[in-house]
């Protein structure tokens, strides 16, 4: 080895190999937990979708190929909940974006007590989903809730928000938007502060109104932030569980049965882990599909403009 190492060419080879080894040594400790705790369980979960695993004692899971997926194709309850999940996820991410944009613009102006209002806007973020859900269930309560009391006071008939078939889904979407808003607001606010002040000033000098300044200067600068936060919101709401589980448990009459709730029922109430994993696989594919369409479009647009 020493004999070979004297030649300058190989020396470089040895040193770069050593560097590579060093790099591996540094990366392995960081990678291992990810592989052990995320990648392997994820793979195991995906694989379970192809087995007939149950939660029986000493259960042996047999590989059954695509049987679960074929059965899933004909499961109209699942597809109904899938449809509700899409309505829910799209509504949540779009409304969250609109509300958060408004709030961020407001917080970005030179208001008095700016720091205080910014902290206040973060409060929903600090609350665990279960607490949010219990609080809103009280607000929505048909008999003792403050919302109905206020409605009655202005002379409107009380509404059974979470119990009525037409209002249940909108009511839980409002709560999801309320609790998801701070996160998006913070992201947008940070993005707005990156917008060059000179550009805005220049636009103002050129006589652009506030709306035009927002549309032509602020919004284009924010596009990456908007894209990222909406994409994340979509994934989170499509996969959300706790909020709706506590508020309605999928009721009334299955109107708020999100796909995650449905999968949970299949996995833990019916103890068919294999079938439920197949549902999970389908949901992951669906999210990836929707996102890839969105991302590809954005890239194309970016290229065309650039």
């Amino acid at each position, binding site marked *: 080895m020493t004999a070979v190492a004297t030649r300058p060419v190989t020396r470089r080879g040895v040193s770069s190999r050593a560097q590579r080894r060093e790099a591996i*040594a540094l990366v*392995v400790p960081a990678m291992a937990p990810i592989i*052990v705790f995320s990648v392997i369980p994820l793979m195991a979960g995906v694989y379970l979708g192809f087995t007939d695993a149950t939660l029986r004692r000493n259960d042996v899971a047999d590989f059954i190929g695509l049987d679960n997926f074929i059965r899933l194709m004909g499961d109209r*309850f699942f597809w109904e909940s899938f449809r509700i999940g899409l309505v829910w996820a799209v509504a949540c991410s779009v409304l969250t974006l609109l509300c958060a944009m408004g709030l961020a613009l407001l917080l970005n102006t030179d208001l008095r007590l700016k720091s205080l209002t910014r902290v206040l806007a973060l409060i929903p973020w600090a609350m665990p989903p279960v607490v949010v859900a219990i609080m809103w269930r009280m607000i929505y309560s048909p008999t003792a809730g403050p919302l109905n009391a206020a409605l009655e006071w202005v002379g409107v008939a009380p509404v059974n928000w979470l*119990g009525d078939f037409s209002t249940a889904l909108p009511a839980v979407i409002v709560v999801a938007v309320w609790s998801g808003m701070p996160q998006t607001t913070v992201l947008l606010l940070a993005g707005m502060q990156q917008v060059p002040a000179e550009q805005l000033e220049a636009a103002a000098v050129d006589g652009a109104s506030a709306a035009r300044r927002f549309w032509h200067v602020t919004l284009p600068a924010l596009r990456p932030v908007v894209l990222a936060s909406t994409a994340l919101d979509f994934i989170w709401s499509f996969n959300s569980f706790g909020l709706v589980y506590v508020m309605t448990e999928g009721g*009334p009459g299955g109107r708020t049965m999100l796909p995650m709730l449905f999968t949970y029922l*299949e996995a*833990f109430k019916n103890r068919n882990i294999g079938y439920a994993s197949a549902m999970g696989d389908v949901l992951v594919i669906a999210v990836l599909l929707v996102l890839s369409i969105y991302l590809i479009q954005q890239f194309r647009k970016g290229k065309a403009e650039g």
Partner: protein
Amino acid sequence: MKKRHVLAVAMAATAALALTACQQGSATGGDDGDTGGGEGGGEEVVNLEFQSLSDQPLAMEAVQGIVDDWNAENPNIQVELVQAGWDGIYDKLITQFNGGTAPDIIHYEAASIAPFAVDGYLADLTDLIDPAFASDVTEGIWESVTVNEEIIAYPTTLQSYMVFANVDLLEAAGVEIPSGPTMTWDELREIAQATTTDGQFGLGWGLSNPTATFMSLGLGFDGGYFEGSGSDVTIDVGEGELAVPEAIHQMTYEDASLDPVSLTQSGSEVLPAWYAGQTAMTVQGSFRVASIGTDAPEGFNWAVLPPLEGSVSADQAANPQTYSVNIDSEHVEESAQFLDFFTSTENLAALAYADALVPASTSARDALAEQTADETGWAEVLASGDSLVAPPFLTVDAYTQWKDTVATPAFQRFLADEIDSAQLQADLTDGWEQVNR
């Protein structure tokens, strides 16, 4: 050389990390039922872990008292009480069983513990139960804790659905309080109509999760829904099955004597309106007798009406609270010995009194009747205990699935007047075909 060293150390560190993580996962699993060293002499002390769900202050006290008595009398079998609650207990148990950390003695209820028995997690207690207790409990109740011809739990206390009435409102409406052994649905309907006035409903009924109630009260009309057991089951939704939902629908939308908002609430959410005199009657689990006694406003004049009787009988579903033994416990026999003690007449009566439930054994029911002779509601509650029978759904494998994904949504739609009873019948039947594939 040095660099290889770094790599080796890093690998070792990672491996150690992963191993510790694994070990932490299993460390909690291994120690239930461990034997500790005996205090005097070489005798070994058996330690049993007992997960109790009784979360009302009085019931907690009663359970703790029984455990303390046992521990004092049996130094060689020590029971450790682990307090859990009813909320989310299904999720907890399924995690405990699958993770191998379930306690030795498990408290739950017949309808919900059955799936665990089907999946093989519970010990067969058929030959371990004290014969005296076995003959003291009716056949119908034993049936409710029998899975695959094995008795998998000690049944202890039961609840039934009872009508609670605000006596002042009934009298103001000129209604005579029914006093027979049972009351028909028509009587209930008449009283509800008579007590309905402007701004006041005759009946409030918390039916946000209606399936259990309909399954139970349907038995009075011979509405058992299922035929067969295991996975070989057919559903039959006919006149008997639809009688209870239809009666409620009629009272809500034809008579307007039942508060429609209450149909979307839980039982406890309906109580404030009843206390406030906004509804004259409410249907609740019999266990409310205990809390109404303490929660009702001063001077609230209430009574429990006789058990509801359908066209066939006053039967309701027996769904007793149960105490089962983990099949993986190292001390199944000792656990059964403790449960024999736990279900003795005196202890069962104390437990049932604390929770305001009907004891499963006849002797405990008699003892309790004597003890509560002059307390409101108890006579009616104990009387309803005679007509509790094992419902057909207990032995149906896909019942929970059908209940959560088919029946509950369909009943909710029917109660909200979104679908008619023909559609309800179709939904329940088609849904069963979907889930029982």
